[in-house]
Structures are given as structure tokens and as C-alpha cells.
């Protein structure tokens, strides 16, 4: 009952962008994690259908030159791209919050060293380094390894934000009260600081998901994403490689492009909408 009321209240206060973003992202999550499990032919196998079909009642988006069903290939790509994005965002957020809290609360030399490393990771151009690592792993890379590599650049920004948050919170009265009433550092962090940090981290989490999906698809266009990984970027790249543009197979090359564009716009609406919602709750 209480949950129902707070959801209603949330919905009343939510702005248009937040609502649109929520709906859109939920739709993609539905495609990637519910529709994905509906029984269907393996879309990766060649010649399971007649090649080069236009959309019809069986193949909703037609088929590729290699006789793959485009609709299910797309669902598979959305599933894998979202999974990579979510893994990277999770690792980045957890490590970022941990490093940020550690730096902010320990202070002294630990803080200085961690801050220099964090700041460098924010400034260093990530794409060239990702290209280097991905080209070294070419052929042997797995989805998980790809996600780990992308995570290397996902923790720095949240870490810096959480550190400054920790620094300012350390001096607040209610934290002092908690210290004086005998709570240990770990307990103070877990019960007093984390709830604050998590509200902010949620917005960062969504942003990290978006950045990771973009980075993976960028590497895919360079031909550097694992060849056995069906992601949105790889689907576009394969269609390009197999001359889908020259053969004017617009559904093959177009559907992953449209899906990526929509996914990114919805995620971006969700992020900016959520940030506006937070600042409105803070009364600004």
C-alpha cells in the first residue's frame, strides 16, 4: 500500500523526460530480457531462412543475405549490448563508490594518490587505449573480458564525485553525532553516507550504461569487438561488411541503427529527467 502511494507521488512529480525515458528504456529492457527468451530459431546460424526476404508475417524485419532472421538478430544484439552496458556500469559504480569513499574518508597520502590517479583516468582519452587493448585481445576476447576492459574507464568519474560528496558530508552535524554515539566508520558509511551516494550513483549508473554501449559499438565498427558477440555495433558492422548498403537491404543495416539511436535517446531522456527530478526534490 505504502509503495503504491509513493509510486503515485513519484509519477505525479516526474517530468515529461523522466516518464518518456522510463517508458522507452523499459521497452528496450522488455525486448532484451523478456522477448529474448521467447522460443525462436538461433539467429546467428546461417541459412535458417530464405536469404534476402523483405519483412513478412514470419520474418518481421526480413532476412539477411546469409538467411538470418533480422528481428531475432536484433533482439539478440539488444540483449548483449544491454548486458555489456549493465555489467560495465555495475563494476564502474561499485569500484567508483568504494574508491571515492576511501579517498574522501581516509584523507592524507591515500587521498592524494587516489585523487591523482582518478583525475588522470578522467582526462586520458579512453578510445585509443581501448583500441590498443581490444586489438591485443582480438580473436581471444570474450564478452566478459570486453566488459572488464570497458570498466577500466567507468569508475573514475563516479569516484571523483563520491569523494567530494564524502568530503563535504564528513563535516556535517549528523555524521558527527553518529561518530560520537559510537558508530564505527564502516557503519557510518553504510547507514549515513551510502543512501545519499546511491541516489546520485543511479544517475551515473545510467550514464555509464550509455557510454559503455557506445564504446563497445565503436570498437565493433573498428572490427575489434569479439567476433562471436552479437551486439548492436557488431550487427551494424556485419551488415556493412556484407555490403548491405550497396545491396540496399535497408532493414538489415537500418534496424540496428534505429534501435541504437532510440535506445540512446531514451537513456539520455531518463538521465536528464532523473537529474531534473532530483534537483526539483531538493527544492530548486
Amino acid at each position, binding site marked *: 500500500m505504502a509503495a503504491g502511494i509513493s509510486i503515485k507521488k513519484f509519477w505525479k512529480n516526474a517530468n515529461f*523526460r523522466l516518464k518518456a525515458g522510463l517508458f522507452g528504456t523499459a521497452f528496450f529492457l522488455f525486448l532484451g530480457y523478456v522477448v529474448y527468451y521467447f522460443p525462436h530459431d538461433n539467429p546467428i546460424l546461417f541459412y535458417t531462412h530464405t536469404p534476402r526476404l523483405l519483412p513478412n508475417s514470419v520474418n518481421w524485419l526480413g532476412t539477411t543475405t546469409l538467411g538470418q532472421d533480422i528481428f531475432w538478430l536484433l533482439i539478440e544484439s539488444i540483449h548483449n549490448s544491454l548486458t555489456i552496458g549493465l555489467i560495465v556500469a555495475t563494476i564502474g559504480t561499485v569500484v567508483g563508490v568504494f574508491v571515492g569513499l576511501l579517498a574522501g574518508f581516509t584523507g592524507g597520502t591515500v587521498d592524494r594518490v587516489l585523487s*591523482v*590517479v582518478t*583525475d*588522470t583516468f578522467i*582526462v*586520458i*582519452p*579512453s*578510445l*585509443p*587505449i581501448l*583500441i*590498443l*587493448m581490444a*586489438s*591485443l*585481445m*582480438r580473436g*581471444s576476447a570474450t564478452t566478459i573480458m570486453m566488459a572488464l576492459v570497458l570498466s577500466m574507464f567507468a569508475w573514475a568519474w563516479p569516484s571523483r564525485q563520491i569523494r567530494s560528496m564524502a568530503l563535504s558530508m564528513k563535516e556535517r552535524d549528523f555524521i558527527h553525532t553518529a561518530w560520537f554515539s559510537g558508530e564505527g566508520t564502516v557503519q557510518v558509511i553504510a547507514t549515513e553516507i551510502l543512501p545519499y551516494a546511491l541516489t546520485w550513483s543511479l544517475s551515473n549508473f545510467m550514464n555509464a550504461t*550509455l557510454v559503455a554501449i*557506445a564504446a563497445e*559499438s*565503436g570498437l565493433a*565498427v*573498428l*572490427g*575489434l569487438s569479439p567476433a562471436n558477440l552479437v551486439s548492436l555495433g557488431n550487427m*551494424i558492422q556485419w551488415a*556493412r561488411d556484407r555490403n548491405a*548498403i*550497396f545491396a540496399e537491404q535497408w532493414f538489415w*543495416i537500418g534496424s540496428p*541503427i534505429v534501435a*541504437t*539511436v532510440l535506445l*540512446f*535517446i531514451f*537513456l*539520455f*531522456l531518463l538521465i*536528464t529527467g532523473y537529474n531534473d527530478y532530483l534537483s526539483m526534490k531538493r527544492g530548486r
Partner: protein
Amino acid sequence: MKFRTYFVLRVFTCILTIWIGVTFIFFIPRMFPSDPVENMLGQIISRAGSMDPRELELMRSSLRVQFGMEGSLIEQYFSYLRRGLLRFDFGPSLMNFPEPAGNIIARNLPYTLFLALTATVFAWIIGNLIGLFAGFRKNKMSSRIMESIAICIYPIPYFIIALVLQIIFAFILGWFPLQSTIFHHGTFWDFFASLLKASVLPGISLMLIGTGWWIISMKSLSSTTAAEDFVLFARFRGLRESEIGWKYVFRNSILTQVTALALSLGGVFSGAIMTEIIFGYPGVGTLIQRAILQSDYNMILGTITISIVAISVSTLIIDLILPFVDPRIRYS
């Protein structure tokens, strides 16, 4: 803090960034089980069929020298820092053997800088003007439409915009060639005209996304500034709206955007790399792609080192110019 202290600190941070970056790209490849020399040898053996083991050993040691992999790890590291960072010498390129990788990069880098800088400057000016207008008169229909368009363009990855532009303007309409060609023979004007023609679509791809971001950020900045008391006071004094817009809102919001420009350079450079690859524009991006396809290890290391140096130095330059633009800056 004095300007001199600020200057020294910023230069120091820049050097530190470059150092951590290149240390990273030196040690990362060595943590992977794959060895470029063995890969290369494997390719040669598979082509040659069989080889004399003594010759193979000779070849291995000479390749180790070419790849900068002789000596202990520490020796290799210092020789890489000395040769790579001070003299931009990364050894011979393998795809254009024996031309040094550094020379080829030096030939390609100006194209990327031309593309990225022109697009950045145009995007920054156009985006900030539209953003100012949209934030200052945020209740107008046209402001809302502009912002909505920006929100729908900015989050899209660079290569997708590039791909869509390529399909529409080069493939369907045929206004531009599918792949860029630049004439190096003929007069300077032949060269310049072909350069412009090759740069239009990649440039627009970069500009669209950049403009989107500057509209979004400037809109939120200028609408905050427009709500400040001193703007209200200016209205009470009876100043013209255009004067308030330029002298009060614009001048107070634009400085934040100069700082933001420095931070955006890394992203623009990455975007340029991706866009170049789609259009086959002859810059660093295309070079990286060819190097990856042909496993030109020296070239990959070289382009990436240069990218890190280029981005860090351009960020430094903007940061050092900033105090001259913003009288309020506190060198922090």
C-alpha cells in the same frame, strides 16, 4: 594563487597525465599473453611454409630490436619513453616498411586536427548562440523545438550519425563520394578543394553532435543566469532585451563554456577517429584502423601515444588561455 603557480601546476598535471597514460599503454600489452614478435613470426612461417631454425632465431632477434623489445622490461620502458615521447620515434611501420611510423603519423595528424578543430569551433559558436537564445527566451516555441532537436541528436554515437549521413548524402543522393579522396598532385587549390569536399560529411557529423551538446548546456546555463537578480535589475533599469541578452546573460555564461571546451576535446578526438573510418578520411583514425587490420604494432603504439599527447596538450593550452578570458578566475 599567482598566475605563475597556476601555470606551473597545470603544466605539471599535464605531464603527469601524459606519463601515466603512456606508462599504461606500455605495460598493458606486456600483460597480455600475445607477443607481437611471435605473432609476426607465425605469419611469416605460415606464408613461407618452413624455415631454417637458425635463420628463424636471427629473424626473431632482429624483430625484437625493431619492436623495441630487446633488454629487460625496465630498459624497454625507458627506451620507449626516451624515443617515443621525446623524439616521436616508434620504430619502422610494418605495413609501409621501412618508413618510420612517426613520419606517417606526422603526415596524417594535420588532417585529423583540421577536421576536429574546425568542427569543434563551428559547433561551439553555433551551439552556444542557439543555446543562449533558447535559454534566454525559454518559453518561446522555437526555443523548445531547438532544445528537443538537440536532445535527440546529442546522445547518438558519432559513427552512427556518420553512417546515416553517408547513406543519405553519398549513397542515395550521390552529392559526395562514398570514400574521401584527396589530391596531392596539382596546384594547391586542387588539393584544397578536394580536402574541403572530403571534409564536409565527416565535419558535419562531428558538428551535429557537438552543436547538440553546446545547445543543451548553454541553454541550462543561460536560463539560470537569466533568473539572477542582476538581470532583473537590468530590466528595471529599462535596458533593451538584446542588450541584456548579450552583455548580462551571454558574458556571464560563456566562460563556463570555455572550460567545458577543454574537457570536450578528448571526446571530439575519439569522434573524429570513428568518423574518419566511416568515410575513409585520411587522418589518424584511418591510420589506426589500417594498423589494426595489418597488425602493425609500432604504428598502433605510435598513433595512440600521439593521440594522448595531442589531447593533453590541447587541453593544457585552453586551460592556460582561460585566465586571460575570465577576470574572475581564482586559479584553482
